[in-house]
């Protein structure tokens, strides 16, 4: 398929996700607790997209490769070594704003 409104269904039934480095794709997958391999497109100039993927890799939450090393990564991957991705905490933001406006 080309575009779906939501990948939630597909994500729910997947055992492994292989994705580009788009932040939405990465975060949605990790939040559902699915193992993720991020494939970097060397030819795309969009460098800032890599920042999140690199950080997630540094934190041990995703596997990381490019198109030519994908097969090798799939063959040698150890998904159990992936660390869980803790959810963000919007309540900290709410608390911060409440302090700014003296609403605490």
């Amino acid at each position, binding site marked *: 398929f080309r575009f779906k409104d939501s990948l939630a269904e597909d994500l729910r039934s997947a055992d492994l996700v292989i994705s580009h480095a788009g932040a939405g794709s990465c975060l949605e997958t990790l939040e559902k607790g699915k193992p993720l391999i991020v494939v970097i497109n060397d030819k795309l100039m969009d460098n800032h997209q890599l*920042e999140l993927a690199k950080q997630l890799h540094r934190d041990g939450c995703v596997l990381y490769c490019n198109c030519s090393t994908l097969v090798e990564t799939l063959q040698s991957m150890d998904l159990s070594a992936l660390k869980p991705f803790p959810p963000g*905490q919007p309540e900290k933001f709410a608390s911060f704003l409440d302090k700014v*406006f003296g609403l605490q």
Partner: protein
Amino acid sequence: AGGHTTEILRLLSCLSESYSPRHYVLADSDKMSEAKIRSFEQKRAETFSESQFSLDRIPRSREVRQSWISSVVTTLYSILYSLPLTYKRKPDLILCNGPGTCVPVCLSAFVLGLLRIKRTIIVYVESICRVETLSLSGKILYYFSDYFIVQWPDLKKKYPKSVYLGRIV
């Protein structure tokens, strides 16, 4: 737009009803955010009966990778367009997280503050995608916002006036 909308709705998710009414400003070219916002507000109305919100659209200030010179022109146009909107709404708080759309809105509020017409608190939250570098909107609004929030420690080091609360989306 897209990821920005999802992020900002998450930021709004824990806010109390003191943060009401909510005025959403979208780029005229944005097709998908309106549905996400309406869905968010509808859910919110289930818990908070008096939930009020509105939606306004402004011309998109800059296309991805638009040239520098034409960006200045289109952004100036967007600021002029935003002034009457910001004047009408006179927000106490502007919350934004990075799409080009937010720059003219914030700058128009800043101008109204300089003219002593309305003092708006501008809170900018840089996207979670920004780990090492700021977006262009962030680089500009770092100097115009009252509170500039980053979600990764590297950015806090590079931009010491920023606020670091960890990951908040």
